[in-house]
């Protein structure tokens, strides 16, 4: 499990930040993105994939979350 931070960039798209590795990247796809179910498997621009426990849409961004690494290129 890794601590990650999800924020919305200026254009309103989700971006991913992994503080431990200083890895900042765009989230290209998110499994669930609706008001009552948000999260699931997320895919990053660099090809990595993480899993966020599906939850209600966070009230504000950025938000720190726990995520499980499914597949990372590094």
């Amino acid at each position: 499990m890794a601590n990650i931070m999800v924020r919305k960039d200026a254009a309103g798209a989700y971006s991913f930040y992994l503080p431990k590795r200083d890895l900042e990247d765009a989230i290209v796809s998110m499994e669930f993105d609706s008001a009552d179910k948000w999260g699931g498997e997320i895919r990053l621009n660099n090809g990595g994939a993480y899993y966020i426990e599906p939850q209600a849409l966070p009230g504000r961004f950025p938000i720190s979350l726990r995520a499980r690494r499914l597949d990372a290129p590094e």
Partner: protein
Amino acid sequence: MSELTREETEALIQEVLEVYPEKARKDRAKHLAVNDQSVEQSKKCITSNRKSLPGVMTVRGCAYAGSKGVVWGPIKDMIHISHGPVGCGQYSRAGRRNYYVGTTGVDTFGTMNFTSDFQEKDIVFGGDKKLAKLIAEIEQLFPLHKGISVQSECPIGLIGDDIEAVAKKGAKEMNKPIVPVRCEGFRGVSQSLGHHIANDSIRDWVLDKRDGQPFEATPYDVSIIGDYNIGGDAWSSRILLEEMGLRVVSQWSGDGTLAEIEKTPKVKLNLLHCYRSMNYISRHMEEKYGIPWLEYNFFGPTKIAESLRAIAAHFDDTIKEGAERVIAKYQPMMEAVIAKYKPRLQGKTVMLYVGGLRPRHVIGAYEDLGMKVIGTGYEFAHNDDYDRTIKEMGNATLLYDDATGFELEEFIKRIKPDLVGSGIKEKYVFQKMGIPLRQMHSWDYSGPYHGYDGFAIFARDMDMAISNPCWSKQTPPWKKLPEAAETSELKKVA
């Protein structure tokens, strides 16, 4: 020398790598690259933030240097104890030129060195008692200090001292904050982790101390984050922001105080200059307090105007007008500077090897003077820094991460730039090779270089270095071509 093509640059890298043993060559090859602006992600072309190879000469620092020297050290009204042996603090004392106002030794302590001076017995029996005594002594001798930070040197982590307990007890006794910082030098691969640790310790021990307290806010409150006031940089940045109508609540951490840091969560926008060393705290404040942050660049008129407009875009029309007013006000002054120096510097080439933000931020300033940066590299950058650098650098220019002494020398010997921007460790090596060098860490004892006023000084300094007559006197008269000497001799006679 004329610019290299992509193939030539690639060949140069291969040639330089040839001397290494195979394993080292494989490792170093990942850290050297030819810039390609079409690459979106830097990690496809360059690897960074990795352990330096044993046996090569690196110029990196340690986590203690990143925490005490960079982030904490400039906070002027706190006392930063270099906890451990005496050398770490003494040999880095006041070397970074973080200017500040105040009476040193009375209410400010920036250039002083406080150390627990570990001896053999402290290693054997532990240094906690000594630290407690030191804290009591500081309180007695310097009653006007606002707080203490305990900057751990390597032995503290090795012998397992509990500095947190001592700090908590001492803070209670004297009713001032004491921040234990676990920035032992052996942590991480470079000073970069020290920045991160220092940011985290500010987050955990300082930042939330004034939450819920009254604060007379204005809609125009900003803070300058990641400007260490080297040679007065933060001051020449601050006046521009104030002139456009913003109120600078805090400076992190050049000429900064503890109170300013504690008040930062009340601002409306965090202005981040050195991304590498303080993005961590900006991200934290964005999440916890909802304060957006913005990277800006105050090197050279083009980038300053761009940044001022980007900053103003976060505020209402009065600030936007203010930004235009400031840009217009300094325009004639900048035109005069460029008119004076551009003809002397036009077309000259520069290679940079520094840390933090400068390898990409100063490119704009050189371009304003008509110069070209043909190689750049960071000591301790991460991938996100190179992501930002690739766009700034020209195609087919050279990128080097954590360059070794050998690589840097070979590159510069071959490429022969007109100027090198690096540090004191490189300065005399290259000047003896006949290539002018300006220190870009300490501005070569000059500065400030930020802001409009800084650009005038920057331009003058670069011209002084390049146009110095000594560079044409590198060959002694007896080694000059005889015909040339004879003709000049004849002319004199005639």
